[in-house]
């Protein structure tokens, strides 16, 4: 049977300092992007809520007046 030979080189045993730094930077970038995206969506939510509340109030007033 044909086999695949394992190399004699060992896998890295643990995270190195540089890897931890790199990983944390990546996570930070992800977090920054998430923060910005959440902020965009929060603005959308806030704006649409305000628009609907304002329109609802105007419509109710119109209905009362009619």
């Amino acid at each position: 049977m044909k086999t695949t030979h394992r190399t004699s080189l060992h896998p890295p045993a643990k995270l190195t300092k540089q890897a931890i730094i790199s990983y944390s930077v990546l996570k930070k970038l992800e977090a920054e992007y998430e923060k910005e995206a959440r902020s965009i969506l929060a603005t959308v939510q806030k704006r649409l809520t305000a628009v609907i509340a304002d329109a609802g109030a105007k419509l109710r007033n119109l209905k009362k007046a009619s």
Partner: protein
Amino acid sequence: MKQSGSIHDQYPQPEQGASEWDPIMNKEDRFRARLESITRKAENWLAKAEKMFAFVPGAPAILEGVRNEIRRVRSDAQEQLLLAGLWYGKEYSAHQRDGLKAMLQEEGRTVEELTRNPGLFVDEPARMIQSMKIAEVALGAERLSVDQREYYKKEISSTKHIVYDVYLGQLRKDAHREFDQGKLRRRENESVRSVADEIKESGVLNATGMSSQGKKETFLKRLLLAQDQRKAALNLAINKNAQAAILERLIAGIYDRVKNPLAEAQRTYREEVESQGGTAIGEFPPDMSFGYGFFTFDKADRLDHIENFLQSERKKQPKR
């Protein structure tokens, strides 16, 4: 079996259903879906209000205003998400590559080792392929085609020894990179930035009556155009510096000295470039781009394979 502490445990894992190694893109998709959900709720309210106030004088104008506002808010948010994803994604990819290279170096490894020996961290064929994909990311190289991937799988699972990683494709890529890392890198960044600015200023993304998909496609087309311009500039630079001729000879030379390709290639490359009055990039950089394959030379038919490969490489050389 997954090895504890393997490189796969240490780097962000791809999320299902989206682009591998691009968590920003994954998140962008999710945020886009959230945006749709929020605006759909507003549209549902609008639909109900239209029924409820259908016969109230003055109501249609108010409701039309709400409809326009929903459209505008959604359009603005889509643009903002798109641009944020673009810039953060670019930052992420760049750092991911740098981080992986640094990590390998700290481990006393190089990306070159990883590309030459995909079993460095894992010993199963399937995981080797993953390891190759990591190398691709590390190198910023183009993704493997399905055919190439299948070829690697076959090679890895059917051969007892991986003898040499022949860096034929690398030779071309290195010459490209020499330009790429210099003035063209700046040109590319400027180009992408100017396209993004241009699109923003032109208001294309704010245009009403255009689907979000249409906006995205427009945006992407402009980016692709910028990349095409960059490629054209790159080819021009290569022709101007006669790099294509050097590479043609290199490929031919490699074929003659295929048993020790790397050392010969390094020497030949440096000599050839310097003889043209250029400056070689020193030793082949440790972060060599992903090569074209792992060849074994224990069988005569491998040479046929290499010959075919060389012929296809020659066809790819830029016309002079």
